[in-house]
């Protein structure tokens, strides 16, 4: 076995800790050392809670020593995207407007991690309020892709995927509103899952777009994602939109990994024009592997997907404009007094704070959403977008009458250079063109590495989609494909990533 705990998967760590080969304290310390060594370059963490993580690890080790029956992931550390409320730990959402805010409560998901005995290493970087596909919109500076530090790690959850890719944490929590778990997974050579909408509680997830947001696992293997999914999933009475049903049997599915006789649909509308050659080539190879493993592959058309991006960029800003109204300097977070106004009114303080506290992308979307909801425009924009949303859901229903899962490339390109698309919002938005339909319809999706693009040697990803509440299908197909690809590569894809050198720590 590898002697460096940071190189082990979460499943392997869980086993090592359970069999007392490693203590949780040793595992946590190894990751804290790794963070100290590489995070100055990667900048995936906004806040590291070394003391808290070690305390939690010690507590787990003591409970284990006393013979307590612990959760399978007890003692395995995790990083959490800075959009989840963590009691006593700063939660900024990558925004200046929440600088210094310490939540007085834990998100349900965070409570479940703690209940499972998982030490929380810290909070990961993200595009401000999860608006972006590169983490460049973080008010605290971008995260760098561990494969190439001059490139973006994807977004909005670039921090969560990067910590996993850089071995700073075996597991991380991401959130996915239009692809913020899957696209970063794709460009960092890692695994990311957006569960069925309602599969994981949103209580404590600082909302970007309530009807689209969903938290999920960021990991290096499909099995690890399944293990984490079963910790965080399940009904929560604090979230009305949470599904009142048991968590799908995802771990069992990841262990089954058998696609024989399954019908796999290749989505005609996702993968042609606008997709990088290397992305397409690796995708086609993966599909061929599935076919060789006994799956029946057919092409499926989802004609309404062509309008998904447009509908998404009306629904998301509309909900966001309302969700972000609460950041007004009255109760928490940043408070800025307007310059040159004596005795400012509450409204003037709100305006000055929001002007200073929100970045350009956030303001852009608030303005878009405010406009789309305005009287006289509502029907033409928000109303029409909701109709498109129904059509997209119908496309999925029709498709899933023919096939068990759908597949597409996750992102149209590999990681681009930092700064490349910063002044071109439209081209940035197109990063999510393949991932957005799943959010609009509420269906689950997974991205896993499909290889490296020939033209730039950077990771590419394949997306698997399943019907709502059938998340286990993702894990079954994903694990089967992962096994075949790893065999072909002779080891995990991440083994091909350049070594990060310890400096600046």
């Amino acid at each position: 076995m590898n002697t460096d705990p940071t190189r082990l998967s979460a499943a392997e760590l869980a086993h090592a800790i359970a069999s007392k080969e490693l203590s949780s304290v040793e595992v946590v310390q190894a990751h804290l050392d790794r963070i100290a060594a590489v995070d100055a370059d990667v900048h995936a963490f906004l806040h590291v809670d070394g003391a808290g993580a070690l305390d939690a690890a010690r507590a787990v080790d003591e409970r284990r020593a006393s013979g307590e029956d612990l959760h399978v992931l007890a003692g395995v550390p995790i990083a959490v995207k800075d959009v989840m409320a963590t009691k006593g730990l700063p939660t900024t959402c990558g925004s200046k407007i929440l600088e210094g805010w310490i939540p007085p409560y834990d998100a349900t998901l965070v409570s479940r991690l703690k209940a499972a005995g998982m030490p929380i290493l810290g909070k990961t970087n993200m595009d401000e309020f999860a608006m972006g596909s590169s983490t460049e919109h973080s008010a605290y500076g971008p995260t760098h892709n561990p494969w190439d530090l001059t490139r973006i790690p994807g977004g909005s959850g670039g921090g969560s995927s990067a910590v996993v890719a850089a071995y700073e944490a075996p597991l991380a929590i991401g959130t996915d509103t239009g692809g913020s778990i899957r696209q970063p997974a794709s460009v960092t050579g890692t695994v990311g899952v957006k569960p069925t909408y309602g599969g994981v509680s949103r209580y404590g997830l600082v909302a970007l777009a309530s009807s689209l947001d969903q938290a999920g696992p960021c990991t290096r293997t499909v099995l690890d994602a399944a293990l984490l999914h079963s910790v965080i999933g399940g009904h929560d009475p604090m979230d009305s939109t949470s599904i009142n049903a048991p968590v799908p049997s995802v771990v069992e599915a990841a262990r089954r990994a058998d696609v024989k006789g399954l019908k796999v649909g290749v989505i005609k509308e996702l993968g042609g024009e606008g997709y990088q050659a290397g992305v397409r080539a690796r995708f086609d190879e993966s599909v061929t592997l599935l076919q060789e493993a006994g799956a029946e592959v057919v092409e499926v058309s989802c004609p309404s997907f062509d309008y998904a991006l447009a509908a998404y960029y009306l629904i998301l800003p509309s909900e966001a404009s309302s969700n972000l109204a609460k950041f007004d300097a009255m109760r928490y977070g940043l408070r800025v007094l307007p310059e040159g106004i004596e005795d400012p009114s509450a409204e003037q303080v709100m305006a000055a704070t929001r002007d200073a506290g929100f970045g350009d992308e956030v303001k852009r979307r608030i303005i878009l959403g405010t406009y789309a909801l305005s009287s006289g425009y509502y029907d033409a924009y928000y109303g029409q977008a909701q109709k498109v949303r129904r059509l997209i859901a119908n496309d999925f229903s029709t498709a899933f009458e023919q096939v068990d899962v759908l597949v597409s490339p996750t992102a149209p390109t590999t990681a681009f250079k930092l700064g490349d698309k910063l002044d071109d919002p439209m081209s940035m938005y197109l990063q999510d063109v393949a991932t957005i339909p799943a959010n609009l319809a509420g269906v689950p999706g997974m991205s896993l590495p499909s290889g490296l693009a020939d033209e730039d040697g950077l990771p590419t990803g394949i997306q698997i989609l399943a019907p709502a509440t059938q998340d286990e299908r993702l894990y079954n197909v994903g694990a089967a494909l992962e096994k075949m690809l790893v065999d072909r590569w002779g080891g995990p894809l991440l083994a091909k990533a350049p070594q990060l050198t310890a400096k600046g720590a």
Partner: protein
Amino acid sequence: MSSATSVAEEIVDYDEALERYDPVMGLEVHVELNTATKMFCGCATGFGADPNSQVCPVCLGLPGALPVVNEKAVESAIRIGLALNCEIAEWCRFARKNYFYPDMPKNFQTSQYDEPIAFEGHLDVELGDGTTYRVEIERAHMEEDTGKSLHIGGATGRIHGADHSLVDYNRAGIPLIEIVTKPLTGAGKRAPEVAKAYVGALRELLRALGVSDVKMEQGSLRCDANVSLRPRATGDQSQDDVPLGTRTETKNVNSLRSVERAVRYEITRHAAILDRGDKITQETRHWHEDTGVTTSGREKSDAEDYRYFPEPDLVPVAPTRETVEMLRGTLPEAPGERRRRLQNDWGYSDLEMRDVMNAGAVALIEETVAAGATPAGARKWWTGELARRANVEGRSVEEFGVTPAHIAELDRLVRDGRLNDSMARQVLEGVIAGEGAPTEVADARGLELVQDDGALEAAVDKVIEANAEVAQKVRDGKVQAAGALIGQVMKEMKGQADAGKARELILAKLS
């Protein structure tokens, strides 16, 4: 609180206004439900707790917190809808009403917009002249209350001129039902009375449903009165064909009496403006209880855009028809039927019953009778002394702190012969002054009819002796002359005697 800066505007005589204009009203009533917990979280709802002691991440609008609908509040909303003869939606959603205000934690209010839980109903209200007016209900919808801003340092207690403001979020998230009428037309001169009678009937209904404390002075029942005037129809024109005028919305109307006065005032103010040929400004008006006028609040244009959209954090409310029918089974008897039953039980004449209704005292009398009073005694106190005082002081009878149990006790003291009428009035005085329950007040003030017949007999003898002439007239059969003697005896006894007993004694001695 009154505004020192309010300037009385020109008004015209009410009757003159009504000769030229037809008033149209729209009444919006907000009812705070008396559920144990808030609309979307588990916080307590008790009135008067320390500021910001009944709050949590949800009702403070902390980042990440999510609402969950209070099922009890939905039940209350449905029961209110049914009692108002409304249709109950089979499927409806909450909506966000977006606007910025410091006392609104999320800067949107979770409310309902185009899908109210209840719609298309009516409430028949009985007026003083014995006629009935049907108030058409447009909708009743669920929403959450806002926090409460306290403006410190200004002269008016309003935000203008204040040094700073404090916000108490205890009220934020308390379940509210907003009941909106259709435009009320055809009331004519009776418009102010209709408004008062409607709010009174609604209050009675809500109290019978047990869904709210309905205390107007504490804000658990709040009324906004929209008033507009349109010219009287001329020739063969139907009044319904005359377009509606511009309306004003009067807020801060915190008692039944104020509802009537505020509507009446706005009618006379509008008429003066229209008489001058000026236009009514569509705006919010503040009612001032003390001066009896309204003053301009913020201008409210139709262009105000709340950017309503369906609340994505909540799932739709879809009560099954079985649930609705089950809730219908829990409704109290309809107010009209109830009144007829009570009138019959109590043996009141039509006139007496109308007095009781006009005083808004039906439920109070019911509770008082239940507490042991005679129907006649209960009526006498609530619609007599207490209603008179309320009218003089411009308050509502509930504000005196006198409970049905107090009145029942007072009634018993009179019936037991411990107090006479004038002593009972003094005791009531003491109860209002907060001196305690009637027996305590009577004890403390030493009020008790003299039960010692010896003392009364001595006084009677003394008075007969001193008034020989009058006594002779009584002996000669002029029984009514005994009145003068009774008065003298009562004076002699310093009021602490039973006048009936004195009369008996006098007549016995002079027969």
